């Protein structure tokens, strides 16, 4: 989880901010604060799918899953454990 949080923070900082020294709060709303816009959300989804090998369904692209660094990290860890469980079951 800590590792995921670090990777997501780095991705957002590099891709969506002017200044790397700005610290993002892990609970801050990325949409409300304008850190991420609508295209940004889609780029974030593409990055998550590519990096973690998970498939994000359209209906999962909701603020509850993607609106803060904490929510994103939690969502990814849940998807990853689900993936492991599915593999074990097969």
């Amino acid at each position, binding site marked *: 989880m800590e590792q995921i949080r670090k990777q997501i923070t780095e991705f957002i900082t590099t891709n969506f901010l002017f200044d790397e020294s700005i610290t993002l709060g892990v609970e801050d709303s990325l949409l409300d604060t304008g850190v991420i*816009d*609508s295209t940004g959300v889609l780029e974030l989804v593409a990055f998550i799918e590519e990096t973690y090998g998970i498939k994000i369904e359209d*209906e999962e692209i909701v603020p509850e899953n993607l609106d803060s660094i904490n929510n994103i990290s939690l969502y990814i860890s849940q998807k990853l454990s689900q993936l492991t469980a599915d593999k074990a079951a097969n």
Partner: protein
Amino acid sequence: MNPTTQRPNDPTNLRLCVRCILPETFPNIKFDTEGICNHCRQEESALAKAPAKKADYRRKLDDLIASVKGKAPSYDAIMAYSGGKDSSYTLKLLRERYDLRVLALTFDNHFVSPTAFDNIRAVTDALGVDHISFNPPWPLMKSLFRITARDDIFSAATLLRASSICTACIAFVKSLTAKTAIEMSIPLSAFGWSPGQAPIQSAIMKTNASLIRQNQKALINSLPDTVQVQMKSYFIPDIYYDLYKDRFPTNVHPLAFFDYDEERIKIELEGIGWKAPTNTDTNSTNCLLNAYANQVHLERLKFHPYVWEIANMVRQGVMPRAEGIEKIYSPQNSEQVEYARKKLEL
């Protein structure tokens, strides 16, 4: 050389990524020892998988269209139509490959070039497409463009990918398209985004009501009070989110996953009466505000507002690097910059 005489966007004075064309002035960019930027490195694995993904998305679109075609009361798709080559080509694809009932919608920002209007008429006539043009009153557009020309009111995320002026216009286009689709029960909304503008993963996507709502709120809040109320009436009304939640369309931008070759696209379009404009700058073939929007962005932020998109296209191999450099690092057409500045009284 006196540094004050240097143009901010002159490639001879700038370090560029040797693979794409992002400059050292692009925020947070890092070059490795080979001179390749962090964005190129980050995209390497995704690019390797792109051909398979594109094929997958072509199938996905075929399936989606099979499931909705002919079922809606009036139109199968609404097309955000600027008259430029990318949206003209997308429209052609929807008509000729899929035979959809399409409504083309042009947002007239009062800077649409006469050539673009000629092309809109020629293409919609040739393809048998209904067309509507939407123009808000000039005083509102003028104050919005004057505000965005003077200040970067939107977030960094937005400004890294487009100028403030363009972002304001795109907000109109996106919400008008969605709003019209909802009101007319049109299941698909199509855009001519180039392969560099948005990732393949988002090329077919059901619009997400809660995400749109939050986004529109953030956009409205970025605007000064003087235009907020007026602007809000063009956005999706709050009541729609409950009343019409099943009518939110699926967005598609097919150019992300069909073969993209500018020259071939132009030749195909010329076959249906479209003509390549000569009086607009090299990056936009339809808007007479574009050169000015680019100029103010460059002066303020020191990188070209199209560089992200064009760098993506160079990286993907759909545009030669030299052509990308030519597009991004040539000076803006000064006549057009002046035309817009005068019209906006700035």
